[in-house]
């Protein structure tokens, strides 16, 4: 095989394998960034504090009535594309509040606050090893929120996952309060 053939083969391999190599390299880079960022969050808890500060502003005098967990919902919008919607769920033994937010230039911006109206809305949930999936149902419209024990992030605002939070205790509390809410709706005993 001549040097020209080797060059053509190399070029072909580059064309065929190049995009995959770039994709793998990109994935590894994001993964490494995420790990580094999450390690920092475990020691400082900065994002968790950011979330609580943000909630203090949004909820004002009701802030103390709720416990807060971060979650989100990924909706696929095409074969290779999906939108991620980040939410914060405020909960106590009676109520749920869903706060939709976004991050821009390092600041968290509230988009909507949705207090759950039990007169017309229903709640379903599935508990997983990683966390809990909430499904709020109003008529034929559903809102799904996945609340994980560890919310992964690399700190960037590009992928709509700006907060990296360790929230194992809060998610356990959420599951317990969901169980109590269910018992209450089934038996009517609070």
């Amino acid at each position: 095989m001549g040097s020209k053939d080797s060059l053509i083969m190399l070029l072909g391999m580059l064309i065929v394998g190049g995009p995959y190599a770039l994709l793998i390299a990109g994935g590894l880079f994001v993964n490494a960034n995420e790990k580094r960022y999450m390690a920092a969050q475990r020691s400082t808890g900065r994002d968790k504090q950011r979330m609580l500060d943000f909630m203090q502003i949004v909820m004002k005098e009701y802030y103390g009535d709720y416990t807060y967990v971060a979650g989100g919902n990924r909706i696929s919008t095409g074969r290779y594309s999906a939108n991620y919607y980040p939410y914060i769920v405020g909960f106590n033994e009676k109520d749920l509040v869903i706060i939709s937010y976004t991050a821009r230039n390092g600041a968290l911006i509230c988009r909507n606050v949705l207090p759950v109206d039990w007169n017309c809305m229903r709640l379903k949930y599935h508990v997983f090893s990683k966390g809990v999936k909430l499904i709020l149902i109003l008529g034929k419209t559903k809102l799904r929120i996945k609340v994980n024990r560890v919310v992964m992030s690399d700190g960037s605002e590009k992928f709509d996952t700006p907060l990296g939070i360790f929230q194992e205790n809060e998610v356990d509390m959420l599951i317990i309060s969901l169980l109590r809410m269910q018992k209450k709706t089934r038996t009517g005993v609070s």
Partner: protein
Amino acid sequence: MLVVVASCAGISILLLEFMFWCLGEWRIWMAAFREPVDLFSSSSDLTQLEELDVVRGTVRVLGGSYSYTYDNGIQDTAFYFVLPIDTAQETFYMGIRETRGRKEDFRKLAVRSKHDVKPMRIVMGNPWEDDFLKQEEQVLGEPINIEGFVQKMDENQYRRFLTWLEKSGYYEPEPSDRQIDESQMKQFLPYFIEEADIAYCQKAAKGACLAVLAGMMLLAGSAAAVIFQKRRRERQQYVTIHGTVYLKAHLEPVNDLVMNIELLLAVQALSRITGLDMTAAEKVIRRWDRYWY
């Protein structure tokens, strides 16, 4: 959604018809409407014969059969019978290709020669071979009604036709040092009849025209619907929900949420803006395109 389905259906139909047009099907379908030529009447002028002329008539005698192998990438052997046509002045010869499963009837009508294509049962060494060969020079079959299109032979095909005629004694080539007699060659028409169901072709042509019309109407209809919707959207300034009129600008946040597929939040926003209860607002959001054009 309906517009997308209609335009896709229209495009598919038109592409299909374009494919038929490229394959030459349209030419054949349209040729089916030509006035049929009666080859066997004394008034017909065979020198005026053209490709894709419609031919109808009754065959009473055939001059034998020969094969020709097409090689257009894939080899395909076709069988032809020689059709002698007697006119007032002279006898003309052309090919005829049977395509409607009446090969045996054609064989019965053919004057056999030893250069004919043998049926497969003879080629495979069947004991009836002797019977078949004994029938040489006999015409036993009933007259056959034929209809089809006149097709032009290509150069190779015509050469094969002449070779067969020469072998079977229909035609004696001039010695190589003499010019070919043009008037003698005129007898051997470079055409063959390909049997076809003309009525079916006419039906197919009508169906194809209707399909093109339907395809164009679907496309035009969906384009008109898109333009109508666009104009209606541009004109819309108010949104009427349950009899109450709202400025379109006031419902902009609701529309943004609907476009962003955050439907539950859109329900809440609509309920807050309009004062509707959540259940009624949810029904409105589910049919949002009926309110917000």
